[in-house]
């Protein structure tokens, strides 16, 4: 394998890794405020891109992406208010089953609205064949969009959770919901907010990746599995670790095609998920100290 090809594989791996990471961060946001895993996260990504594609028929690219993201955000809020908020004793298992059910429901609704067809948003700049040369590798300009937008979202979220009062309130709800209430925090609103936030970033991610990965009613399932693997791989609840975990998984996947049939690509992430859960449940970058302080 030449150096060029090697770097090309790395670039492809990093791109996919960052896409997985952004889905993983969606998991992390809801996990961080509620302590549950929202298995409908992949569906937010699908909804964002499918809605944007439909809107793009009647308006320019940027407004359709913005509007689709906002609509998805409100769908996220609606889901929380309708299915999660009124639960009297939201145990972890119950929430997981509800979110899996919701993901099936959303997928089937999407199938009946948009059909089975594969669609895509146009490239933001350039087209399918244009490419940018960076050092020895050539990549599509859309890859730069994916990397740029996703890294930007990670940075903004980090700042939000660690340096704003609202972000800290959301983390407080995850750390100890009873104590959060005793500090005057309306925990139910924080949960709604976390669903809105993760729906929003999921939708934005869905829009920027659509030109590369294409969009279909069932694109969420695969992304959710990869995203979940990455969230666990990096260390549940930590956005920067998810980024690292995503890049690790993306690169592993990208090199796996080199020594085994590409049909096994998806098996890699499941295998990694299992190995991590057995060997190091706190994740590659998760500190044991932090993990020991969490109940799930």
């Amino acid at each position, binding site marked *: 394998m030449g150096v060029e090809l090697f770097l090309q594989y790395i670039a492809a791996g990093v791109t996919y890794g960052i896409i997985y990471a952004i889905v993983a961060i969606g998991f992390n946001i809801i996990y961080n405020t509620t302590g549950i895993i929202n298995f409908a996260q992949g569906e937010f990504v699908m909804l964002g891109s499918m809605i944007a594609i439909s809107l793009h028929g009647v308006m320019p690219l940027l407004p359709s992406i913005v509007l689709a993201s906002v609509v998805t955000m409100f769908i996220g809020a609606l889901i929380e208010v309708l299915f999660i908020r009124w639960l009297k004793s939201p145990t972890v298992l119950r929430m997981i089953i509800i979110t899996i059910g919701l993901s099936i429901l959303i997928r089937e609704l999407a199938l009946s609205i948009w059909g089975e067809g594969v669609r895509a948003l146009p490239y933001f700049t350039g087209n399918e064949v244009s490419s940018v040369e960076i050092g020895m590798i050539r990549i599509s300009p859309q890859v730069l969009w994916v990397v740029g937008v996703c890294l930007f979202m990670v940075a903004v979220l980090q700042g939000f959770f660690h340096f704003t*009062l609202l972000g*800290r*309130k959301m*983390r*407080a709800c*995850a*750390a*100890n919901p*009873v*104590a*959060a*209430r*005793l*500090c*005057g*925090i*309306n*925990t139910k609103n924080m949960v709604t907010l976390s669903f809105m936030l993760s729906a929003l970033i999921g939708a934005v991610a869905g829009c920027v990746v659509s030109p590369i990965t294409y969009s279909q009613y069932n694109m969420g399932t695969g992304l959710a599995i990869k995203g979940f693997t990455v969230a666990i791989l990096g260390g549940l609840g930590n956005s920067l670790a998810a980024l690292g975990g995503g890049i690790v998984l993306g690169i592993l996947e990208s090199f796996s095609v080199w020594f085994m049939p590409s049909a096994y690509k998806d098996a890699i992430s499941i295998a990694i998920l299992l190995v991590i859960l057995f060997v190091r449940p706190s994740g590659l970058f998760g500190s044991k*100290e*932090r993990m*020991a*302080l*969490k109940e799930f």
Partner: protein
Amino acid sequence: MLRIINLESGYGSLRVIRGVSLHVNPGEIVTIIGANGAGKTTLLNTISGLIRATSGRIIFDSRDVTGLAAEKVVSLGCVLVPEGRQVFSTMTVKENLLLGACPRGKRAAGRADKDIERVYNIFPRLRERHNQLAGTLSGGEQQMLAIARALMSDPRLIMMDEPSMGLAPVIVREIFGIISRLRREGKTLLLVEQNARMALGISDRGYVLETGRIVLQGPSEDLLQNRDVQRAYLGRDLDAEIRL
């Protein structure tokens, strides 16, 4: 300041508090003592709004707060330091304190640094550890953090649930010293304690709770002298002493 009238509450169909009436005057330290399972924690959780009362009334500052959500009660100036500290263990000491100021709303945001400085003066050890995760603090430090966090809401009434639980005697003395200091600074306190001797030692009045009912009340000195209280809660066997 606080008046509770015929309060009943519990979990589901289980009635834990059965018609409790008590009051706390401004500037007082009042202690509730009782055995395990007497309903002390349930009583405080009901006052703070974590559990809904099934009947009776809770009046705080001549305002009926019965059935109000916990996050509303604390913003009125009635704060609970819960049993087992309940700090935000995955967040730093400073973040815990900032969150404590939430009940005061936007006004407090600008003053937060000054308020944190004030509680650091009461708890110098928290200042040293301000960037440490709260979950890595020792039990005594976590209790101090829980009290400090409650103080950040600038409460008028502070309720404390077993502040001495599981702490070394020297730390317990420190915590009780702080409780006395808070009263001197104009706070009103309602304590629930297993350590009856120390709690009654610093408080003005006391109530004895048994299986959800107040069975005895009075000035703390009187309760300390009371034979039943001594036998049940202060670990003195009077009959044995008389026989000697």
